[in-house]
């Protein structure tokens, strides 16, 4: 079993090299290469169907759950290819957490929602230590003050924005290094969205964040780097341009990027 104890001095948290992803015979993503910098927020933007979510999900091998999916190329995390034959996706997902488009708290109590991740990953400790871990995770997701008096209530009793922060807290509890967010605010109102964005800035100090978003404003105000994806003529997603958010939004090199950002298509 591979472990990731050797910390590379590399400033990149994770790096895709020539990633192609197939669903059956259909090539959904074509030769994507990009390096994600540590402790930064990287936004993936692009029109629907351009493969940005697929690329995101390949970073913690969630695509493996689709029976027909097949991956070519490498994703390097801590100096090791995540798709090497001796890597178990179960370990990858502990190190690289995920927050989904629709908040999906488990139908358990708020406390159990947080405790679930550590427990299934072989956590050992006392009840007091688990209490501490739950509190720290909820504080990390800026949810502690909202829920500290009702930890035994169902996670489903929270509002939409709170549920999404609960899912972030849940991901933090397994102490990941990278957090993948797949359109986490698409079902939230503007105030909840703002809260999540503020939270992302906080989290950036300790985690690397990759976020897929359809919201241009969100990408421009809440990310350090932006990657723009587009479908090619064979309907396969390709990385068109990747750079600092500043550069992509103000000085795009590719014509298609410029057209997309200025709202001329997509």
């Amino acid at each position: 079993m591979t472990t990731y104890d050797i910390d590379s001095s590399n400033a990149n948290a994770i790096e895709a090299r020539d990633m192609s992803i197939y669903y059956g015979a259909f090539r959904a993503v074509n030769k994507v290469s990009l390096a994600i910098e540590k402790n930064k927020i990287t936004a993936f933007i692009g029109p629907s169907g351009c493969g940005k979510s697929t690329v995101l999900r390949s970073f913690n091998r969630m695509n493996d759950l689709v029976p027909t999916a097949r991956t070519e190329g490498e994703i390097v995390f801590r100096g090791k290819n995540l798709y090497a034959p001796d890597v178990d996706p179960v370990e990858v997902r502990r190190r690289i957490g995920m927050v989904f488009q629709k908040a999906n708290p488990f139908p358990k109590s708020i406390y159990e929602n947080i405790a679930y991740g550590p427990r299934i990953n072989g956590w050992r400790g006392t009840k007091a230590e688990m209490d501490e871990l739950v509190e720290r995770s909820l504080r990390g997701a800026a949810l502690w003050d909202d829920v500290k008096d009702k930890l035994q209530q169902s996670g489903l009793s929270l509002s939409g924005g709170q549920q999404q922060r609960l899912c972030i807290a849940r991901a933090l509890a397994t102490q990941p290094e990278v957090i993948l967010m797949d359109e986490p605010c698409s079902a939230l109102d503007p105030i909840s969205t703002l809260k999540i964005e503020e939270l992302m800035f906080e989290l950036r100090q300790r985690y690397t964040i990759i976020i897929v978003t359809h919201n241009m404003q969100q990408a421009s105000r809440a990310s350090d780097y932006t990657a723009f994806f587009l479908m090619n003529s064979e309907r396969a997603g390709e990385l068109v341009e990747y750079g600092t958010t500043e550069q992509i939004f103000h000085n795009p090199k590719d014509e298609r990027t410029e057209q997309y950002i200025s709202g001329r298509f997509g």
Partner: protein
Amino acid sequence: MSAESINPEERSVGVLPEGPAVKQNIARRQLIGQIWRGIFFFAIVFGLVALLTLILDVVNDSFGLIATQSEVDEQEITGGRELEDLSQAELVAILNENLSRRVLTRLNREQPLEERDAANLVEVIETEVLKTELVAVFPLWESLTQRAAIEERVTERFPRAELSWKAWVNWDFITTPMSSVAFNAGVRTAILGTLWVTMLTALIAIPVGIFAAIYLEEYADHRVWYNKIIQTNINNLAGVPSIIYGMLGLAIFVRVLEPFTSGAFFGVSSGGGATLNGRTILSAAFTMALLILPVIIITGQEAIRAVPNSLRQGSYGLGATKWQTVWNIVLPQAFPSILTGIILAVSRAVGETAPLILVGASTFIVTDPNGPFSKFTVLPIQIYTWTQQPEQEFKIIAAAAIVVLLIVMLFLNATAVLLRNYFRSKRVSV
């Protein structure tokens, strides 16, 4: 063709109602809705009426007046006192006085009269001396509404007969074993047999059914041809007539696996030293389990499929293995619905008759089942056997047995429903 030549703006797009037509249109749509509502309501009424008719019919037969007649007048032998008031010694005296030497010898051989208690002696006097006989029975409705006519008819035909109320469903009926005389027969063996077969069936079918459902939903790759065949077959098996399962059970469990199902392999001998064979509770339970497995599997699959995929993804995303996800997330969420399927399936097993006739349920048995290797009978078999008898009394105790069967079923279902509600409340949700 001509439409294409016209300017697109001028092509007809139909007409939506306007003005008074709106009101008319809405009234019509509401009326249709009302009519359908009535039809749906009628379906409920139909079901309720059918159920009520069944219950009334059964209850009607289970209670009512009976006419009994004794060969000897009770007052004559007791000197005008009630049998129940006599002491043990007096009762023994009456027996010694009224019975032939041969009968007395037989009774004393079973158990000396002096050692018997008063209740037993009263019973012996009733059967051996008074020879109380049931001469007529009347259903509840008739007993209530035409009491005078009944009395008149009875005194005319059986001058010495006594008319009394009888509830055929009573504690004695439930605790007495089978008898060839309807008046003395009970359903004790059948109730115990039903409980044994049902419990064993559930014990076999529930785990196998749930595990199979989990495999088919969570693990099996539906694109592979053999999984498709398995799925199709399970769906079809749910519709196979139960008698076919009886034939299967007879061939496999009773005949081929006889050493196991008779208990011989485990060194167990059938109760009462009877000949060993495979017609045991175990064979019946396996047959019933096969019968209800498809139903449990299919409803289990539905329940598992109804668990939102986002929950599975959330669990995998935290680093859970497939097994952890199924056990901690999917099953707790699906369990109440799985239980609903189990309740329906087990209820079916409780009432099933045909396969057990083939597997060899005894039609007449007086010893209690004492384990999986016992011979047995069950309530539906008992009911079926009694309805086949020519005497009217048997039809009446069949009705009484139906009441008992309904009560047993209600009891089992209530337990399962309570269990389901418990799991539902444990599953924290909004």
